[in-house]
C-alpha cells in the first residue's frame, strides 16, 4: 500500500456553498485531501454528496467558497476551467460513456483531444488500461453491448487514463447489482494500490470502511461528522451519524 503524503494537501476546499435558487444544498463544507488518500463521502440521498463532487470539478458554479488544487486556486475568476477539469476526473453513477464511440475510442478521446497525444500513443495507453480491467478483447465494442459493470469500469478507466491529480467517483456502483459492483470495487482497490487520490460519494458503507482512509458524513449540506474510517464506523459520536449508520447497515 502506498503511503499518504501529508506534507501538503492535493485538494483544499473551504466553505463550499451551493444554492439552487432558494434551496441551499451545501452550507459551507470544508475538505482536505492528501496525495494517495481515499476520502469517502457518505450520507442519505439529497445530502449534497453529488453536488459537492460537481463543485470540485467546476461543472457546477460555486455560490461561495474557494478551492485549491496543489496549492493553486482553481476557483479564482478567469481560470481555464477546461484545463482544471482535465486534471480532476469525474465518474458518474450512470456511466455516461459516449454512445457513438467504441470503448477504445471513449478512452482515447480526451487523450488525443485534450492532452494532444498522438493516435498511436493514445491507443497504447487506452489499450493498456482496458487490458488491466480485462476488456482489451472488447475494445472495439460499443457501450450498449457491454454489461453495466463493464461500462462503469470503462468510464472509470476513461477518467484515470488522463492521469488526473484527483479522481471523483459519484456513486459509481449505485446502478449495479452486487456482482457487477464487485467488479467496479475491485478496480477501485486496484487504483488505491496504484496511489490514485480519490474522493468518492458512496452508499457502500462496508466498502468505504475497507478502502477509505477518511470518512465524511454529510447531512443536510453540512459535515455532521468526519474521522478515520475505522474509528468513524466503530465509534460514531454524532447522534445523526449513529441514526444513519443503524438505518443503512
Amino acid at each position, binding site marked *: 500500500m502506498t503511503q499518504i503524503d501529508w506534507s501538503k494537501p492535493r485538494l483544499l476546499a473551504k466553505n463550499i456553498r451551493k444554492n439552487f435558487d432558494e434551496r441551499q444544498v451545501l452550507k459551507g463544507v470544508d475538505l482536505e485531501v492528501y496525495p494517495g488518500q481515499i476520502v469517502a463521502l457518505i450520507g442519505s440521498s439529497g445530502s449534497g454528496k453529488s453536488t459537492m463532487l460537481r463543485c470540485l470539478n467546476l*461543472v457546477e458554479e460555486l455560490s461561495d467558497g474557494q478551492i485549491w488544487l496543489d496549492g493553486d486556486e482553481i476557483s479564482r475568476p478567469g481560470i481555464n476551467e477546461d484545463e482544471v477539469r482535465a486534471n480532476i476526473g469525474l465518474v458518474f453513477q450512470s456511466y*455516461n*460513456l*459516449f454512445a*457513438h464511440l467504441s470503448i477504445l475510442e471513449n478512452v482515447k478521446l*480526451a487523450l488525443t483531444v*485534450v492532452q494532444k497525444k498522438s493516435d498511436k500513443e493514445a491507443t497504447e495507453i487506452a489499450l493498456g488500461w482496458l487490458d488491466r480491467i480485462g476488456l482489451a478483447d472488447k475494445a472495439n465494442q460499443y457501450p450498449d453491448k457491454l454489461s453495466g459493470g463493464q461500462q462503469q469500469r470503462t468510464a472509470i478507466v476513461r477518467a484515470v487514463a488522463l492521469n488526473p491529480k484527483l479522481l471523483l467517483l459519484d456513486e459509481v456502483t449505485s446502478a449495479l447489482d452486487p456482482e457487477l459492483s464487485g467488479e467496479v470495487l475491485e478496480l477501485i482497490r486496484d487504483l488505491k494500490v496504484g496511489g490514485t487520490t480519490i474522493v468518492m460519494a458512496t452508499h457502500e458503507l462496508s466498502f468505504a470502511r475497507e478502502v477509505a482512509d477518511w470518512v465524511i458524513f454529510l447531512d443536510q449540506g453540512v459535515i455532521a461528522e468526519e474521522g478515520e474510517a475505522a474509528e468513524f464506523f466503530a465509534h460514531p459520536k454524532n447522534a445523526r451519524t449513529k441514526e444513519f449508520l443503524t438505518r443503512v447497515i
Partner: protein
Amino acid sequence: MSQSEISEAQHARETWRVSRKRRSTLTAIVSTLAFAVVAWLLLVNTPGWSRVQTSFFDWDTAVKAFPRVLDGLWLNLRVLAFASISVLVVALLLALATTLRNPVLTPIRLFAKGYIDLFRGTPLIITLYLVGFGIPGLRIEGLGRIAPEILGTIALTLTYSAYVAEVFRAGIESIHPSQRLAARSLGLSYSQSVRLVVLPQAVRKVVPPLMNDFVALQKDVGLISVLGAVDAVRGAQIEVAHFANFTPYILAGLFFVLLAIPTVRLTDWLAARMAKREQMGTVL
C-alpha cells in the same frame, strides 16, 4: 427433449396461430379488392368520366410527350443533386451557428436565427420569384445571364436549409445533457464537446426526418419551372399546349412518384431499423 419434439399444448397453439394468420390474410385480400371495385365503379359512373379519360389519360399523347418530359426530368435530377448537397452543408453550418456561445460570435448566431425564421416562414414560391427575378434584376456587372435552374437551386437551398437546420437543432437537443457533462468533465471545451460528442450522435438520430425533407425536396424541384427552366413540369406544360391534352402532366406526375418511391421505402427501412435498435425486440 430435442428441438423438434413439441408438446401437445404447443402443437395446438401453433395450429391455431396458422389458421388465424391464413384467415386474416384472406380477409385483407377480399376487403382490398371490394374497396378497389367500389372506387372504380364510382369513378367511371361520374357524368364526365369519358371526357376526363380522353383529356387526362390518353395513351398516344403520353407516348409522344414522353421524350420531352423525360428530358426535363434529367434537369430536375441535376438540380436535386446540387440542391440537396448545398442544403445539407448550409443547414449544418446554420445549426452549429445557433449553438455558438462565444460572445464575439454573437452576430453569427443572431444571423443564423434570423435566417431560419425568415426562410422557414416565407412560402417557397415567393423565395423563388425573389431570387429568380430579383437577382438578375440587380444587373450585377460581369455576372451575365444566370440560368433559371441555377437561380432555382439557390432558392431551394435558401428555403430548405432553414428547415433542415431546425431538424439538426432538434437532433442536437435530443442528445442527453449527461453526454455533454461527461465530455466537459474530461476537459473537452464547449465547442469540442458539441463537435465530437453531441453532433455525431445527433446526425445519426435525424437521418429519418432528413430523408423526409429529401422526399419533399424531390417534388419541389418541379417548382423551378415557374422561373422558365425547362424541367419535367415545364416540358409537360409545353406538350400540354401542343396537344391540347392534359396527359403530359399526369406523365410528369408519375415520374415524380417513381422517383420518390425508393427514397420513401429507404426512409421507412431506416426508421424501422433504428426503432428496432432502440426497443430491442418488442413488437408492441
